[in-house]
């Protein structure tokens, strides 16, 4: 009997290894090895164009932190995040609260708010670039009709980041809205009913009941949005290319440029690791929140 169990166990091990193998091979080759190798590369002066590399210790990290363009990229990424996350979360919470009542046309509204989420970032970035075109675009055309002469948006260093932020808020609003709609369903009906009996108005209800009850989903949406914001790339590549005058230079675009335009693979790997550590820390925080709140 024991022997039979043991054989069965061995067979299970064999089956398991066979089942796991395809996934495990890709995982080792394209996740485990690259993350370790990029740490290794970050300590070298290395180029994508030659096989020669020189060990430089922490020099890449030291240079990175002193580099004005990288500093600019970090501060731009932070201001992008501060622009996208609070406004985006507030707007999607507003929409979710409005949509959470019994409404006609509910599925029309939901589709309208969610459709930017499913369309490709590149395509909508091109559409927005055309909307924001200074002379012939939609936005300045509409502004001209009410007598305002609009800025150059993407070509104006003062407005370029704002333009990218507007696009990103529009693109992600539906995602957080759905997260919040699910959260709103979980607020016990009795709480809202007793609030109605007590004559609580809508604003009071939002501040005193809805937001506190939605701590979990809001915390979750904030962290997911921050992680997404730190990885912003596609819209920058298409709309501004990091310009004008580095006004929209962000961390991932900087990494892309250093690695694949200037071929500085060692230095760019240091950028990658700095980004990785920041995102890893945020994700740990998210997992803790998920466990305690939701």
């Amino acid at each position: 009997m024991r022997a039979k169990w043991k054989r069965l166990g061995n067979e299970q091990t064999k089956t398991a290894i066979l089942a796991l193998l395809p996934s495990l091979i890709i995982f080792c080759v394209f996740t485990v090895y690259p993350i370790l190798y990029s740490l290794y590369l970050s300590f070298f002066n290395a180029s994508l164009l030659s096989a020669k590399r020189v060990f430089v210790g922490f020099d890449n990290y030291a240079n990175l932190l002193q580099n004005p363009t990288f500093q600019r990229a970090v501060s731009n990424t932070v201001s992008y995040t501060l622009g996208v996350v609070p406004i985006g979360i507030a707007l999607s919470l507003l929409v979710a609260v409005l949509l959470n009542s019994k409404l006609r046309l509910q599925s029309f509204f939901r589709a309208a708010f969610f459709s930017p989420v499913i369309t490709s970032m590149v395509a909508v970035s091109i559409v927005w670039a055309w909307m924001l075109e200074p002379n012939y675009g939609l936005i300045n055309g509409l502004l001209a009709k009410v007598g305002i002469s609009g800025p150059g948006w993407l070509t104006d260093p003062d407005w370029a980041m704002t333009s990218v932020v507007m696009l990103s808020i529009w693109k992600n609003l539906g995602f957080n809205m759905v997260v919040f709609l699910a959260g709103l369903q979980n607020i016990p009906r009795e709480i809202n009913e007793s609030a109605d009996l007590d004559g609580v108005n809508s604003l009071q209800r939002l501040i005193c009941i809805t937001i506190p009850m939605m701590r979990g989903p809001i915390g979750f949406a904030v962290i997911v949005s921050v992680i997404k914001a730190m990885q912003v790339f596609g819209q920058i590549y298409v709309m501004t290319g990091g310009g004008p005058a580095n006004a929209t230079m962000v961390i991932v675009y900087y990494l892309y440029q250093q690695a694949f335009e200037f071929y500085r693979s060692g230095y760019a790997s240091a950028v990658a690791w700095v980004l990785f550590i920041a995102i890893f820390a945020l994700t740990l925080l998210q997992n803790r929140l998920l466990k305690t709140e939701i």
Partner: protein
Amino acid sequence: MQAKRLITYLVLFCLAILMLMPFAWMVLSSFKEEDEVFTYEMTWFPAKITFSGYYRALTEQPFLRYALNSVLVSVIITIAQLITGVLAGYAFARLKFPGRNLIFMAYLAAMMIPGQATIIPSYILIRKMGLIDTFAGLTLPFLAGPFAAFMMRQFFLSMPTALEEAAIIDGCTRLQVLSRVVLPLSKPALASLGLFTFMGAWNDFMWPLIIINRDTMRTLQVGLAIMRADIYPDWPMMMAASVMATTPIIIAFLFAQKQFIESLTFTGVKY
């Protein structure tokens, strides 16, 4: 109460119009003549509906080739992720083997690694394999992923084991159990994971951007981005290309709203 409802509708309508405005602008501009857009008085509607933008996108640009590449890449990645994800998820959920927890922990940790952190070594690796400008290079790193294995494992764990045990007593092998008993019950999870993976692959931009140099191997996203880089922008053509690139997905979404939303948000914690 009535006034409150009215305000709710009003606010939602205004916001919905703002949300849909870029799409309207895209569609209307795509039917304009090439030089019609360069008038100082902005107009919504084309003076005369023309398909010349579409014609130029399809003839002067290898748009169809881009679309075909995108379809192929996304389909290959989706099918492969479903197969590898089901197999790995089943092993994690139901089979006992040494090192299971350790490997699973490694998978969990890897889900926190952003794609940009591994992109340089992955690029060097693909180049060493001689796979620049190939479908293999476009798809290989994405044929399996920790997230697919994780999601399928969670799903299998939520299923009762009684049916599987009965099948094993009846003499089924594990593989038969998986294909005949477990998979038919897993359709919702497979649809969710498949849709999520397909959307991710279809919209992926950075990897195809660096791995492809040859025009005919570009995916739709890279092809669109390259059109935009032209110094003499042909906006109606670009809008026509954007319409063609987005409408199939939008139509699919309108038909299966619920599946899309569930797949992208509840699967899509990772997104």
